[in-house]
Structures are given as C-alpha cells and as structure tokens.
C-alpha cells in the first residue's frame, strides 16, 4: 500500500470537516488551534497510516489539501 501524507493549507481551510469524513483511514481530526480567521482546521494524527489515497484532498471544497506520496 502506498504511503504519503496530507499537507494542509491552514489559512485556506474553512473548517468544514468534509475531509475528515472522506478519509478512509480516519486519521484526520480537527485542530484545537484556529487559523487567523478563527477557524479550526484538520490535522493528521497518524501520518504513518496515510495511504495517499487523495480522498481528503478530493473532497476539500477549498483546495486546502495537497497530498505527498512517498515512493
């Protein structure tokens, strides 16, 4: 299985949490911190489990997630 990680553009994130629902590995959760707009954003709490499936990024309406894949 591929490995990778999501890179979250915190300032672009609007905190909709759709990425969280989209992640098949359930390794995203919302941050306690907020960005400059007072918005909570997702963090990946278990990057090792990330399979670089891009689901979270695909789901994100604000193009706030990029996916890195390790080869």
């Amino acid at each position, binding site marked *: 299985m591929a490995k990778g990680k999501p890179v979250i553009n915190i300032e672009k994130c609007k905190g909709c949490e759709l990425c969280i629902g989209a992640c098949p590995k359930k390794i995203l959760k919302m941050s306690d911190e*907020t960005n*400059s*707009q*007072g918005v909570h954003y997702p963090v990946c709490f278990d990057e090792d489990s990330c399979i670089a499936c891009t689901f979270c990024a695909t789901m994100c309406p604000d193009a706030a997630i990029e996916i890195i894949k390790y080869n």
Partner: protein
Amino acid sequence: MTNEIIFAGFGGQGVLLAGKILCIAAMREGKYVSHIPSYGAEMRGGTANCSVVISDEDIASPVVERPDICIVLNTPSLLKFEPKIKKDGILIYNTSLINVKPKRDDINIMGIDANSISEKNGSSRAANMAVLGFLSALKPELSSVESLIVALDEAVSERNKKFNPINIAIMKEGFSLK
C-alpha cells in the same frame, strides 16, 4: 446624544438578536433606535454583524461606519472592526473565543469571557446575553438591564421563550461584571 454601535460575531452567535433586544429596550425607554444587519454577499456563512443606533433625535443613517461602541464575539470580527472604532470609543470583546489581543491604545478595551458565562449558566450559545448585560452596566444611558429583560421577552419567538430564564441569568451576570 447618539450612540452608534456594532455587534459582530459568527453566524450562530446571535449578534443580530442582541442588537434587536438592545433596540427594543431603548425604544421602550423612549429613544429613537435603528437596527440594520450587514446583509449580502460577504463570505457566506461567515461573520454576521449589525449596526445599532440609539439616539435622542431621529436617526439619519442606520448604517454605522465608525462605531462608538463595538462588541465583537469572534476573532475575524475583532480584526475587521477594531480599526473602525472612533477614538475614545469602546471595544468589548469575547475573550472566550478571541485569542488575539486588540492593538489600539486610543480606545477603551474590555474583554469579557462571554462563552464561559453562558456555559456556566447552562447554555452553550448565549454569549450574546452576557455582553448585552455588560453593556447595559457600562452604558446605562442606552438601556437599563430591566428594559433588556422586557425586550428579550418581546424579541424571541414563542418557541424560544423557554430559554428566557437562563438568558436573563446570563444577562445579569454580564451586568454584574462591571
């Protein structure tokens, strides 16, 4: 005497209702009042705010550009409105949710832990009542807390009247803060 006030926060924080309650209260005390929400194509579902004017004479424009008093309940609202407050004006901000510090030194800045007050009294969403109470303590010429309580009853729908006791308690606690 005319007071131009802005209430600002995010969608569900009830800033429009807070403004409305203040208006009704002041109206019952014989003042001219006006209330206008910011409406329109701001970032959708983002911040909400309203302009309130309380005055002894009829009101020219309901739109407040440079407020005497500004009550902000979240960070984006603080960022947006702090610069607009008149010199020597008042900024009341909700320390529960705002973690940045206001910067101006030519206005009077007061923080109140509004969400905590609300929660303590058993509501997760009545921070607006806390700041209202606080405001009436700070500026009794706008409206007494008694009038606010009467106005609250007038402003909320039948369905929501059941929360009034909690709301009043929170308002009173806000009032007592000063």
